[in-house]
């Protein structure tokens, strides 16, 4: 029997847990995944197969809508689709699309996959979030100090 879409996602995420990249990996409710990754914070990934959306919920605190950082973040995400990026770094718009939403200064980042390409989607989204944090470390160390308890030095 063909695997359910959710199972494809679950297994893709599980590989990161098995390889020691995600820690404390769990699924609290169907399609609601939790794990510790990158700055030792719990991250929440919500899956909605009805809308084919993977969403890192409330990933970035302290970014009010309309702030300079919000605009920069949107630009960063749009650029992930840039065809000048090598294929292994790009999110192919034909296969998935990235977006962000903000509420009360909390930014969530979503990837809407096309034609249920979830293996691709999980892989691209996880890589994109990694790239995002590298970017923040490079360009906005102060933001990480203030919002993620990264030591100032």
């Amino acid at each position, binding site marked *: 029997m063909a695997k359910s879409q959710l199972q494809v996602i679950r297994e893709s995420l599980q590989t*990161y847990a098995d*390889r*020691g*990249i995600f820690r404390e990996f769990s699924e609290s409710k169907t399609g609601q995944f939790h794990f510790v*990754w*990158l*700055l030792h914070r719990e991250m929440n990934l919500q899956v909605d197969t009805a809308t084919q959306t993977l969403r890192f919920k409330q990933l970035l605190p302290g970014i009010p809508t309309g702030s300079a950082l919000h605009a920069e973040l949107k630009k960063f995400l749009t650029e992930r689709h840039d065809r000048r990026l*090598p294929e*292994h*770094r790009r999110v192919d718009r034909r296969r998935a699309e990235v977006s962000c939403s903000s509420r009360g200064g909390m930014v969530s980042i979503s990837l809407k996959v096309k034609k249920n390409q979830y293996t691709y989607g999980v*892989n691209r989204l*996880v*890589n994109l979030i*990694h*790239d995002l*944090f*590298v970017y*923040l*470390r*490079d*360009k*906005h*160390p*102060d933001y*990480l*100090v203030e919002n993620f308890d990264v030591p*100032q*030095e």
Partner: protein
Amino acid sequence: MKETPETNKKTKADVSRRKFITRAAIGAGATAVSAFSETKAASAIDNPDIKPIKVPDEFALAAKAQFAKAEFPMTGAQVFARVCKEEGLAVLFSCPGNYSIVNAIAQEGIPTYSGRHEGAMCHAADGFCRVTGEVAAASGTEGPGFTDMINAIAAANAARSPVLVLASNMAIVNEDTEAGIQLGYQQPTTEGLKKYGKRLITPKRIHEYGAYAFRQLRTGVPRPVHLDFPAEVTRAKFEKPSDLDYYYDKTKYRTTAKPYPNPKDITAAVELLKQAQRPMIVSSNGVFYSRAWDALKTLAEKAQIPVVESGAMKGQFSDASPLSANAAPGALASADVVVLVGQYCMPTVGEFAFGPDAKYIRIDPVAEDIGRNLPIDVGMVSCEKAALEALAEAMPAMKHDAWIAEIAAARKKFEDELETFYAKGASYTDAVHPAVIAKELSDFMYRGKLPKEQTTFVAGGYGIARYVRRWLRGYRPGQILNGAYQYGAIGPDVGYAVGAAVAVRHGVSVQAAHKSAPVICVTGDAGIGYTIMELETASKYRLPIIVIVYNNNAWGTWTGSSRSPVTLSLHLFQENVRYDKVAEGLGAHGEYVTKPTDFRAALERAYQIAIKESRPSLINCQAKKEFWVRQQYEPGFLGTVEPGCMSYNH
């Protein structure tokens, strides 16, 4: 450009000051400085009542001293010094104290330097290790001398430096009585900060414990060894070798054998690397200490694997190579197989910029650390050099043209960004922006008259380091000392620079080709406060060090307190403090740079003084704290991406 009366005066002062310099000093060592001269601080130039700063004649006499091997009967201290000599201990940095040991080591002819603070001298020993790969010793007296070294021991431990820490102790006979002064239990104090430590209590085992120390220092992953010597041990008299237990040659008490890679692990690594489309090697401390740079180059070139560096020193892989990814941070996340060689301070997931899909091959001389923090796909217990040689042999010639092109593009992007930082920085004309210092320094070292591989550089400071490191390049092993490293203490920089300059002066190991060349160091205004007195040490020994101080009137961490005057004030200094004048008062040359356009000329002048007079300088670059605020002064305080030229912690 119009000169201010201030700069005018300085120029005249510089000219007349040179008249006081009677002879240039291009010595070959601490006890071998060939000439010593007098220096007048600028304020003293026109006042005949003020006597010049003078190096005592004893230094010239010491430089001519002949050393004879001590013969039996010998003291415990002499026996220990003999072990050090036979082990090729390259140098000792000390402050007075631990007299029997220091004197015995100096009299064995081991270059011995004496500075102003035991901690700074211990940093000097650490700095020496980081630019030579050799063992260096630091010594202090019991009690205060030893405890002054704690921070430096901790920093050396975090950086995996083979520093031999030597401290005296009072007589065991007085144990627990508080009779006299300074008796203390030293070893528990360095718990967690050393590889091995021992209070020597049985005099006739002193040679044996020398062997314990060097066995630890010269094998596996290096870290500090701390020995403390109660008086009974150092003063003990030995009439003949048989009075000592275990008195034999180093070939009997330690081996030079190294762990060789298991062929199965080589096969597994080769399989992974052959499948990789975007492999990368991270070269770190172990490549330096095992002197594996040739093997690294052979492997990288044969299999076309790009290399990025991290660690306490850089330059093992030349940044002139198209395979260098040090200045291509944007490409790191593309690597699919990463070979970590001699990466002793291992980052946790997410600290290195490699992506979540990267697989890891880890090469380390000891098994205990493999798999810690970063999950591995292949673990290889081996001497780094042996592993790289075996891999170079086993790997087929490969091509990764697209990957190398990606790295070239990422490097260009990075360098283009640096240009925009510089353009911005240079547009702020009322103070010296860090991008100006970083760019002009790199032009001076790599694109001017100097051979680009010549200058050994001490990369210290905090916020300034975030700029300077981006422009720094390494073209040969031991060229860049990555200051403080994982134990990110600010302040050791002048101490490190003394150690590096001594290494260069003696032409030790990889510094041979650059013997006596000037050493450049960058630090912050908070940083300089800790070890500025060692400019006196550098002046006394005529070490040609140029210390650049990024003076932004504040601890670089002030931004975190910017909203409250009370807590903000805790981060502030007086504005416009004249560190250059302090330097002059200590016998060094001082420059005060207040405009970006004046930096390069000041650097040139300091360099000339370093070459012609073999004398240190301090260039005080007047900045402002607001340069760290991006909204006011783009690009503001910068972050880091590791590994590569920005790497800071690992």
